[in-house]
């Protein structure tokens, strides 16, 4: 594994977006992962539509039929990948733009620009997460966002942080030694793309510390999924 890695430097990450006052973080995490996977499969970065999932994805958890993707009321990235496999894929942001509110489905199959080939869940192991990131592109992850409400910059490494996951984001890279805390050592960190606009955090991004001594900070390792895209010409 490289000691430092950032998919932004390799062209696999689109612009920072803003979900507005809508609990649709899960759809932004999903598009981010598929934008990266599509880039790896085709060499072309397509900015993909969240609104298609907000409006059209009502996929439910097979074990809990009442737990379904529900637009601005929340969802889950893996069920969204499942929806994308069934529906055929995603339209571009341009063809199906984001409105920040629930609407009726206007999906047009003829406008699909990216398709899911496969998706899987990565084990709770920081080396495996890094390896999957490098091999398959940006990863859809869940995080506990309690410290993100007041975050302005730097590497977040709270002494105490809950691990129940409430926010979907995109893991785009990692650094080996980015900050010198009062803990006396340079510490490694993850680089996370958020969906609250460029004016939040570090130009829309969040940094959070990673192992070996601070694994799974704010639950960041516990819900990681990777996706591969179908190569289309």
């Amino acid at each position, binding site marked *: 594994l490289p000691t430092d890695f950032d998919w932004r430097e390799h062209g696999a990450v689109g612009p920072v977006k803003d979900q507005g006052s809508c609990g649709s973080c899960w759809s932004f995490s999903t598009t981010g992962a598929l934008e990266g996977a599509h880039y790896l499969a085709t060499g072309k970065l397509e900015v993909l539509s969240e609104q298609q999932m907000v409006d059209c994805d009502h996929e439910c958890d097979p074990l809990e039929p009442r737990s379904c993707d529900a637009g601005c009321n929340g969802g889950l990235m893996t069920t969204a990948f499942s929806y994308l496999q069934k529906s055929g894929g995603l339209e571009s942001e341009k063809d199906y733009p984001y409105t920040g509110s629930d609407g009726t489905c206007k999906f047009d199959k003829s406008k699909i620009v990216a398709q899911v080939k496969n998706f899987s869940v990565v084990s709770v192991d920081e080396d495996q997460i890094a390896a999957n990131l490098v091999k398959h592109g940006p990863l859809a992850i869940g995080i506990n966002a309690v410290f993100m409400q007041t975050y302005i910059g730097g590497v977040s490494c709270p*002494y105490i942080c809950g691990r129940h996951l409430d*926010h979907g984001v995109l893991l785009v890279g990692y650094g080996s030694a980015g900050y010198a805390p009062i803990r006396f050592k340079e510490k490694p960190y993850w680089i996370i793309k958020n969906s609250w606009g460029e004016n939040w955090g570090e130009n829309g991004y969040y940094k959070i510390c990673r192992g070996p001594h601070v694994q799974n900070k704010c639950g960041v390792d516990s819900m990681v999924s990777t996706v591969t895209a179908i190569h289309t010409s």
Partner: protein
Amino acid sequence: AEDPLIEQVVGDAAGDELELNAEAHFASFVRRFGKSYRDDGERAHRMSVFKANLRRARRHQRLDPTALHGVTRFSDLTPAEFRRQFLGLRRSSSRDLLKASSAHEAPILPTDG
């Protein structure tokens, strides 16, 4: 989860200064983020939430000293409003995901060398 193990119960100078100037900080926040409230009652309520969030940001700063915490565009929202409007991940874990979706576990990749 965000409360420290040892909670400071006496005031400190920086904290007192922050409280005293909360109105000025709030006015600056309203200007900076272009906030508007429907009436004086709503404004007063948002001001009290903002004050609580100033204390919260200070607590986060103590708990998370390697990051910078402070006023953001969410500073007039209660934690519940923030969760409802800006989060939205259905609760689950990797284990639940494997059971609940058609996903399979990613094969273990080599990480040496």
